[in-house]
Structure formats: C-alpha cells, structure tokens
C-alpha cells in the first residue's frame, strides 16, 4: 500500500521501523528505545522502498580483525553514526546476539546490518556483514566475504598485527577484495601507530598513507571511514535487469517462521509472493516476507540486485536451507552462483545426552543449531557407556566449546562431550578390506573405528600451518614449545624491530588441547596464534586400546603418535585407577598397542565392605542404602564383571 510513498532516508526516520521487541533470532531481547520522527504516524508501518538504491549506491563490506581489536565496537559506532541505532553508552556488541557471544566478548556468528548513509548528496546503502574474530570461525569469515566487495582490516594500534590479522588479511586478499586498513584505539596512551603501520607495510605491503586511524570507542575517525567505504569499495557487480540469482550465505531457524535465509541478490530482484526455487533441491517456495537487517528485521517489498537481506519463505525443514545455494525464480534456467567450499571440520568429539531419555530432544536441538552453524558435521555414534549420541565435527576447539555452550544455553540441553580428536586417514590393503571400507583410503573420525593394524599400509595425520606473533624475547621458549609438539619451524620474520612472526608446521593433534594456553604461558600472554589447514602427512601413529581385566573398553580407544603413546597411556591408566572405585574383584587396567601392553595399573579388590551393625532398628536404613547402591549399579557400564560409573569415562575422556 505504501510503495509509492516517497521516503527520505535520514537519521531518525529509519529508527521508526526498528521493532523493539524480539531480536532477530528470538534469543535475546533488546529493550533499547528509539526516538521517532515526529512527522510519522506512530501506528503506521512504513515500508522502505529499496529501489531507491541502485547498484552504484550499494556497498557491501565486512570488518575483519584479530579478537579484541575492537571490531564489535566499531560496528556499534557505524550503526550509531549512520543513525541505525541511537547514540547510547549502552551500545555494546549490538550485533552479537548470542548469550555466548556477549559472555565471552567474541563474535561467533556473522551478522548483517544495513546502514543508510548520505554522502555528497547521494544516499548509500551500506551492508555491514559482521564476522567472527576467532581462528575457528574462518569459515564464517570466508562465507561472509563472498557477499562483500571490500573489507575493513582493523588492527589495534596498541597490540599491533596479530596472527589472526594475518590470516584474515590473506582471506580477503585471496578473495580479491578491496582492503581498507584501519588502526583502532588510537586514543590509547600507549598506542604505537607508527610501529603498527611499519608492521602492516612489512607483512601486507600496505602503504602508511592508506591507513585510516580511528577510535571506535570515542567515534574518532568514523566519518572518514564511512567516506572511505563509499569511495574505495566498488559497488557489487549486479544487474537488476537480469533473471534473479540470490546467493544464500547464511540461514537460521525461527521456531515460528521456519528457516530464514540471508541472501545477497546477485541479479534481478525478489518480491513478496515470488515463487523461488532452490538450485540445489529444485524445491519451490513462496516468499512470505523479506527485508533487511538493521539491529532487527525491517520489512521491505523488494530486494534488488546488489542488496543484502533476508527472505522468509515457508521452508520448514532445517535441512532444506543450504548455505551456498542459489535461489532463482521458479522455472528459471539461469546458471547458479558457484557455491561455497564445504566447511572442513578439524576436530571431532562424541556428544551424548547426559540422560538417554533426552536423546530426541538433543537431536532436535543439534539439528536446529547446526542449521545456524552448518560448519558442524554430524555422524551418528554409539558408545556402550554413554549410549546413543553423535560424533560431531567442529572447526576448532573454541567452536566446539561454543557449540556445547549454545546447546546448553539456547536449548537447555545437558550433554557429555568427549575428548576431541582429529580426523586421521589410513591407507589399507587387500581387495576384500578395500571393498569393506569402500576404498583404499579411510578417514577415521572415531578412533574406535580405526581399521585393524594388520591391514593398514600407512597412517596419515592432519597438519596445520601455524602463525605465531610474539616479542622476540620469547623465541627460545616458543621454539621449545613447538618442537615439543612435533612442530617444524618454517620461517621467522621480524615484523618490526621487536616482534617476530613464526611460521610453524604442527600436527593438528598436538595443538588440540592446551597448546594455546601453554603458548600464552611461556610468552607471558604476549603471543598470538592462528592456524590453517596444511593437509595430511604420513605419520607413525598407533591405536591405543584400554583393557579392564582383559576386556577392551571401546570408548577409550585413542590414536596417538608413537613417540608420546606411552606417556599418554600411562596418564590414562592412572586416571582410570584413581577414578574407578574398588570392587569385589581385582581390576587390572592396561593400555595396549597391537598385542603389547604399554602401561598398566592395578586396582586392588575391596577387602572389606560391610556395614558393622545390622539389627532390628538398622534394617530400614540399611535396606534403603543398599537399594540406592543397587540403583547406582544399574546405571554403571558393565565391562566383564566390573562396574564402571559413567562419570569415570567422562573424567578420563575430558579435555
């Protein structure tokens, strides 16, 4: 009804449309108040006409930065300066909706916000795609980059270039995006812009004259940055006259509206009521709602080429919403946009419901969560001790932690997460075996499922290429740490007069658990670390199995490099000894590689376990006590004649 309404975009007007109630994901409630333009009727919903923004007036960009370099704060300021949100001291991490993001001060999930900005008498639509700042979420970053033409490379003027800065720079560089280098926190007393610009010159060949200086906290330089966005970043290559192609770059699930897709419209336009078809599944959907994101959703009638927004189209099944899919008009034979490289999980762990009766609930929670986080891979798993569950693949340890925390916070799920492991590969021989495993090369996600040693020709383990940046005072400590983790030093570059950048090839398995903590410890907290996939390499791996009185405990099976197998086996045996309660029979705890026992502990049998007194007045209490123990026994995992409380496995398998 209001499509003809002439709309002037300026500060204050748009706020009118921002719904105060529910956040976009129904996760957190934002109770911010917005001032309203006095000329508009409070009750009327005004729907912005996005046809006002031709392609040349659109800029799609994101901010990439090392963690804590102020990315979310800068996003807050950009939202404020453009009037997308009102100025308030309370604007902190506005785009970080998840509880886990706010608690940890990190961004996990890419978010989008459309800013309207007037410059030189023109109105521009700036689409900011906020990205995660942690190494684990590179996948999110690279996905976001496909919807952008430029990035703001944000570096803390005090901390300088960090490992993540390097990784992010190369992501943007390889994607051939325009990079706007920005120094943040220039207001700080110990900011060293000259030194940092020298680093940027040394590593990225960025000329100091191109670097903008801002204080996201105070707002200094933010206007200049907005101007640079308009001037330096090219508009998207898009054509509104061509048939529709819309790239799905994110999806999320809303329990009332089903799957909501975030799209970048490459060509053509999408209107409410359009029949869209998925290039992947060929299924068709009718557009029910569409619009743009500010802090909340803003309904529009149409999304045009070059624009970024969301589409609701009655997609009920979470599996139908595939990231990387291209939406076209029904019946259209237009070539889909090349999709995304599938996210490659680096870390696998068993995830089980604490209570097996909650299996179905947990399954639905995992399904919903993985829709918003398609980088998680899912395999059904079963453990005799922990019951039915899944083996999930994560991008990294933080990703795994965050996933678990989100399960707990957003779905009240109570889960057991086992110790993580990396995906190994083995080459097997024998035609029969190859047929059985469906190929000569087998990827092993669950150590229990490692083929027998006899049929393995060669083992392979994944490597990472690590980047460490730290002051040169700690070279000795860092080198020792890396060598101790089977690292191979590749390169050392002074990025300024004081700080050094190491490149080191490490087995992924070696950095899984506490590498980063140890690195922080030996460098007094100064080192930053990032890593990227570096392929597989033949390795001398062994499968360690654990036996209780000669019976194998499947869920404890581990794969490890031969050099540290014995140390690990001893540690696990000792942990088992300390945690399995004494029983009627002596328990021998053994670790074996092939047929050889490499570690052993004994748990002596209980020699006395009987209540001293039992007369008439004791019977009720004694019976109750023994019945409780009987109930407890039922919940234990029986291995031969040994009963092992399940929390023992959790304790042993825990990180």
């Amino acid at each position: 009804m209001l499509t003809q309404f002439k709309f002037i975009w300026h500060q204050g007007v748009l706020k009118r449309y921002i719904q105060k109630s529910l956040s976009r994901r129904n996760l957190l409630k934002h109770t911010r108040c917005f001032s309203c333009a006095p000329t508009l009727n409070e009750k009327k919903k005004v729907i912005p006409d996005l046809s006002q923004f031709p392609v040349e007036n659109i800029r799609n960009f994101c901010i990439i930065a090392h963690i804590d370099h102020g990315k979310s704060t800068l996003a807050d300021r950009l939202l404020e300066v453009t009037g997308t949100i009102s100025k308030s001291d309370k604007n902190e991490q506005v785009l970080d909706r998840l509880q886990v993001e706010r608690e940890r001060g990190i961004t996990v999930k890419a978010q989008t916000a459309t800013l309207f900005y007037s410059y030189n008498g023109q109105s521009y639509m700036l689409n900011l795609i906020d990205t995660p700042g942690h190494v684990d979420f590179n996948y999110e970053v690279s996905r976001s980059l496909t919807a952008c033409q430029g990035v703001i490379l944000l570096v803390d003027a005090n901390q300088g270039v960090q490992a993540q800065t390097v990784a992010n720079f190369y992501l943007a560089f390889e994607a051939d995006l325009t990079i706007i280098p920005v120094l943040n926190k220039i207001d700080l007393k110990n900011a060293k812009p000259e030194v940092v610009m020298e680093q940027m010159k040394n590593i990225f060949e960025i000329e100091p004259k191109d670097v903008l200086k801002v204080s996201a906290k105070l707002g200094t330089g933010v206007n200049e940055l907005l101007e640079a966005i308009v001037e330096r970043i090219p508009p998207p290559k898009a054509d509104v006259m061509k048939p529709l192609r819309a790239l799905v770059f994110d999806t999320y699930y809303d329990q009332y509206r089903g799957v909501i897709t975030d799209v970048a419209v490459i060509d053509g336009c999408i209107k409410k009521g359009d029949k869209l078809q998925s290039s992947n599944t060929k299924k068709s959907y009718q557009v029910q709602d569409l619009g743009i994101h500010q802090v909340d959703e803003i309904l529009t009638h149409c999304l045009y080429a070059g624009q970024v927004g969301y589409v609701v189209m009655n997609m009920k099944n979470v599996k139908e919403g595939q990231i990387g899919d291209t939406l076209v008009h029904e019946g259209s034979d237009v070539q889909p946009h090349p999709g995304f490289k599938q996210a490659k999980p680096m870390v696998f762990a068993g995830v089980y419901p604490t209570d097996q009766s909650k299996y179905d609930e947990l399954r639905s929670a995992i399904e919903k969560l993985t829709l918003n986080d398609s980088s998680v891979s899912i395999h059904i798993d079963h453990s005799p001790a922990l019951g039915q569950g899944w083996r999930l693949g994560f991008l990294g340890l933080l990703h795994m932690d965050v996933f678990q925390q989100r399960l707990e916070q957003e779905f009240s799920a109570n889960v057991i997460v086992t110790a993580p492991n990396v995906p190994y590969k083995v080459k097997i021989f024998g035609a029969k075996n190859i047929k059985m495993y469906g190929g000569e090369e087998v990827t092993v996600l669950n150590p229990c499922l490692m083929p027998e040693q006899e049929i393995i020709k060669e083992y392979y383990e994944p490597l990472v290429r690590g980047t460490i940046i730290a002051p040169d005072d700690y070279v000795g400590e860092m080198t020792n740490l890396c060598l101790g983790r089977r690292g191979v030093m590749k390169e050392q570059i002074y990025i300024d007069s004081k700080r050094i950048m190491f490149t080191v090839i490490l087995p992924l398995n070696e950095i899984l658990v506490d590498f980063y903590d140890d690195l922080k410890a030996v460098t007094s907290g100064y080192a930053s670390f990032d890593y990227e996939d570096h392929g597989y390499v033949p390795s001398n791996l062994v499968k360690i199995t654990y036996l209780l009185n000669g019976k194998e405990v499947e869920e404890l099976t581990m794969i490890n490099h031969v050099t540290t197998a014995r140390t690990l086996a001893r540690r696990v045996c000792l942990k088992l000894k300390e945690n399995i309660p004494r029983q009627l029979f002596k328990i021998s705890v053994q670790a074996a590689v092939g047929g050889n026992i490499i570690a052993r502990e004994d748990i002596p049998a209980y020699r006395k376990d009987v209540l001293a007194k039992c007369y008439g007045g004791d019977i009720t209490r004694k019976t109750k006590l023994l019945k409780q123990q009987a109930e407890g026994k039922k919940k234990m995992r029986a291995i031969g004649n040994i009963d092992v409380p399940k929390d023992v496995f959790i304790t042993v398998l825990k990180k």
Partner: protein
Amino acid sequence: MGTGIISRRVYLSSFSWNTLGFSVAANILLPWKSHFGQLLTRTVHQEVNVIESKTPETDDQAVLYVHWPYCAKRCTYCNFNKYVSESVDHERMAQCLETETRTLLKLSGVKQINSIFFGGGTPSLALPSTIERVINTVRDKVTFKPGSEVTLEANPTKLETERLRDFKTVGVNRVSIGVQALNQNHLNLLGREHTVEQSISCVKKAGALFPGRVSVDVIFGRPKQTLEDWRIELHRVLSFCDDHISLYQLTLEAGTPLYRWVKEKQCELPDSDTMADLYSEAIQILGDHGFERYEVSNFARNGAQCSHNWAYWRGMQYIGVGPGAHGRFSIQDGGGPREARIQTPLPDTWMTEVENRGHGTRKSEPLSNQQRLEEMVILGLRTIEGIPSSRWNRLSRNQDLISVFGNSEKVRNMVENNLLYLDESGLRASSHGLMVLDSIIPHLLNVLEKNITVK
C-alpha cells in the same frame, strides 16, 4: 542357668554348608540337577554351629525389642536415637513402656514372645523396676517360656555394674557390655564414661552373675590403631571375656562429633585395607580361641549366640517398643501383611502419644513380598547359615533361590570366585564374601528385582 537356647551341632553331611568352599564352588554351575550327584560326593563335610531355629517363623510368635532412649553422656561416634537428660521421669517412662508393650502385643496378636532385648540409649540406666514391669507385662499377656533370653545392654560404669545383680533379680539373664576399647585414650576420644579398669571389673562381675551369657562390644578401626595394638588388645579382651563378642568397625555417622573431626582432619581413621587387616586378624585370633563368627560382627563359643538377634537375621517378627523403636510384624493374628513400624523418636512426644492412644507408632507400612525377600537377602547373608531354601520358599513359593539367582551371570561370577555359595539347600556368603557383602548385595537385589514374579 536355664538358658532357653538350644545349641545343636548341625552336621551338614548332605551337601552345602561348606565353609571351605573350594570344592563346592566349582560345581555350582548349572545345570543344577545333573551336577548334583557329583556335588554330593565332592563336598567336604563341615560342622557349623547354629542355634536351632525353633521354627517360630509363623506369625503367632515374635521377639520384643525395648528402647530406653536416655544416656548419661553422648558418645562421639553415636547417632542413635538417644537423649541426654538431667531429669528422667522414670515412673512415667516405665508406665508408658508397659502400656505400649501391652498395646502392641495385643495388636500383633502373637501368642508367644521368644526373647526380650533392652537396648538404647543406655538401658542399664533404667531402674530395674522398669525392666521388671515390661517383662511382667509380657508374661501376663502372652506365653514367655521360662529361660527365654532377656538381654540388657549395659555400660561398664561403676554405678551400672553395681546394679547388675538387681537386673538379674528382675529377670534379665544376658548382658551386653559396651567395653569398646582397652585403650584409655581411645575411650576418651570415643566419649566413653568408663575406664578400662571399670570395664574389666564389670565384665568379670557380669560373668559371675550370668555365666555363659555375657557379651562384650568392642570397636575397632579407631584412629591410629595398628595391627599390633589390636592383637594385644584382643588377647587382653579374651583374657577376661565370657562366650560372646560383638566386634564393630568404627563407622562415621554424619552429624556426630567424630565425623566432624575426621572431616576437619583432626583425626584420621585407618584406611580400607587396614580395616580389612584388623577385621581379618580378629577373626583369626577369636577363631583360635574357639569363637566362631556367626554373623558379620558377632562371635560366640559354647553355643552363646544371641537368640534375639538371630530372630532379626532370620526375618522373624519383632515388636519394637519405646521411642524410635522399629518393628516388623503383622497385625490381626498374623493374617495381615507384615508391616514395618517406627515409633515416635522424641521421648516426650512418644510418652504423650502412648498416654493418649496406647502406642506411639509414628509410621507403619506394609511390606511387599519383594521387600521381605530383599530384607531376607540383606539380613540372611550376614549370617553363617545364609538363606536356607526352606525359609526362602515359605515366602517365594513359585521361585526357589536357584531359579531367581542361578541364571544371573553376576551371581555365577561371584560363585565362581568363592564369594557366594548357591545350591539347592540355600544361598550364603563365603567367609571372604562376608567381608564384602555390601558390594555383593546390591547386585543380588537387582537380580531379585528383575527375576521375581510375585512382587
């Protein structure tokens, strides 16, 4: 002395009561019937002393427990229902014990009481006349055969020792004396009010008054107790004790001072292995002196086993009178279901209730068949005779012990490992099994729950 206890040497030539175990255990695997013949020939004949069960397992008989709730002082390890009171209204207590005895006897419909046990608290602090009134009430209301066991728990203080003769006069014929330790420091730590010398003198005097009918309680597993100390102490106990010894491992009960001290690490109890050593050593030493362990904590020689306690372990009816006393009996002449009963614990409240309605039963609930079988397992296995099939079959007519337990891999494992004996005559724990019963029984309860059809 007319003891009322018929001790009989049961010659178990036929099959199972084999304390050696090695020969039976190997043969106890199924199929039962086909192996049975071989089993007979391999069994080593073994004598076991047990008090004859005079088949009072019908519900027209019971034993009576009477609880005296007062103590002169609180022991540091005790969490029993007891009260330290300056002024005990002896007359009112006596009247109430008498009233409740009368009420519950009538309610139970029993025709005969086989034994009476005065426990506490410290019943030796009760007036002899109080004890007498309860005994007389029993005699008045039901059959109480001459010589039937009447036990009184006593502390070996000077005062109580002097009263022993009076207690004998009113009908007590067995005493159980809380010696606990022959180490003065330990007595102090335990909060006992008597000295080592007083204990010895009390036991000796009691031995003269009640020959063959005196028991001593001894606690082991005391802080810093060594095996050597314990040997010496036990030999010293043996030098003056009578024919019955109860040995209790010191157990930490929540809420007691001792519990707090241990938690706060002010003192430390011996570890689990030392406890096992102390206990094993005691079994050995007492055995060398003719004492047989007829229940986990009870040792006797010359047939001095406690008839009253056997009634509990055999699952017979017992009536509990007094504050906080427990009972297990059926009402209406044995026609109704067996009920578990608990009397009101607070003495004043209990007395008021008894005065108002004749008894102070706080809670009573019927026991299911399964619950009774569970109690039979829990209690029966603590004894040397275990659970004879005859007793089991009275409650579980359709499923004998073998059909309930024989197919369980867990049970067979325990049989193979000489922890349990199971055959057509019954189920019982081996000497080693008795030491680790609390690890065995939970498994048996799960097997029972799974297999029993008449819940």
